[in-house]
């Protein structure tokens, strides 16, 4: 398994062989405030890099999480349907959003250190 990488649009992802797991960063959840609804994609849905895959409704605003690379959804975190606050409480752990099969590998995300300086 590779390191956790971050995107400028505040997603994190971890590549494991030909799949990845994606969610939003701790910084992003903090900016959004309390997350109250999450709209997840369907398993089997295809996305290109940069497509919106998850919609996050928070008390403060609405946001989207984008696909880090071309992919097909293989699993969604259905716990988020009833406990969207998992994203606030554990954004890079239990608050993961979807797993997907990689159609075209693009591991160009930032390291945590790079992301930290990006947001500061």
């Amino acid at each position, binding site marked *: 398994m590779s390191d956790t990488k971050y995107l400028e649009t505040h997603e994190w992802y971890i590549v494991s062989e030909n799949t990845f797991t994606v969610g939003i960063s701790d910084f992003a959840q*903090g900016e959004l*405030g*309390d997350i*109250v*609804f999450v709209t997840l994609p369907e398993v089997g849905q295809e996305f290109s890099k940069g497509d919106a895959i998850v919609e996050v409704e928070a*008390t*403060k*605003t609405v946001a989207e999480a984008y696909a880090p690379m071309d992919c097909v959804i293989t699993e969604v975190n259905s716990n988020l349907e009833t406990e969207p606050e998992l994203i606030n409480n554990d954004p890079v752990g239990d608050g993961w959003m979807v797993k997907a099969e990689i159609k075209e590998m693009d591991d160009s995300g930032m390291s945590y250190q790079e992301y930290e300086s990006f947001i500061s």
Partner: protein
Amino acid sequence: MSDIKKTSLHDFHKSKNAKMIDFAGWSMPFSYDGTLKEHNYVRDSAGYFDVSHMGRLRLSYSQIEEINYLICSELKNIENTKALYSIFTSEQGTAIDDVIFWKFEDDLILICNASNTNKIKSHLDINSITYEDLTSTTDLIAIQGKNAINIIDQIMTIPNKFSTFKENNYIYARTGYTGEDGVEVMIDTKDTMDFINMLETKGVKPCGLGSRDTLRLEASLPLYGFELTDDISPVEAGLKWTITNENDYLGKQIIDEQISSKQHKHLKRFKLNAKQIARTGTICVSDGVEGVVTSGNISPILGYPIGYVLFKSNPADDLVEFDIRGNLVEGNLIYKRFLN
């Protein structure tokens, strides 16, 4: 921006790790523990809000006749111990601001929205009404919640609902903006920290503007700039109950015409059976009548999205279709308050 205004509690908010936002030219706490938690502090127990950004003007009682001409409610003929919610109306009958008056025997305290303080001051100037601006020398702290009165009772005399009181260094009224019981207290800036420490000792939790907004929306209370604007009259905003002024007042003719003709914009409450929030600016249609959402958020207590929508005319149907970022989402108009 270097000229952003700060309340006397600014450093205290920062020490509490509050998330700060710029609101109407003021740096204000948005949340401390999170909007939903703070929402529940108020619904379940008690919270306090620094609302010192709101304008506070002292007016001499002798000008009451002139002030009464500028608002749609009867201020002159109510008791001298009352707090009155009212609206400054323009010549066109629209809302210049919605405000609270604290009526005392010798003076009146006018509390206006932070975004409208300068507008209200100019409006008073034009109408030759003099005032003392207390905004920078005092703070305004709202203590709200199910247990707020029990707690405040240990600190000060509790007036009747919508009534005012002066005691020690506190000038206050039993009013609020959350749908819960409580008081709003004006206090000299030098005394504010002692008061906050007293509240903290009694377990009252700090709450930010985020929960203030979810609480007021859930309590079916309008917010100026959204449900009320320079282009919306009290009749259109569903605030006909505020129109109690028995004398002539600015905009009366147009407001009376709207009441009798019913030909005007209509502000309605709605709920959605969906996971999307119809936020400010969302377009919708009901019965062929177009509307725009003025405020929308989740109701933490009800668990579904709610909001206000302004229709061009009164729709005959209660079904509404919202266009939320390209998806059509159905909702219903609500004729009662969101919370009973």
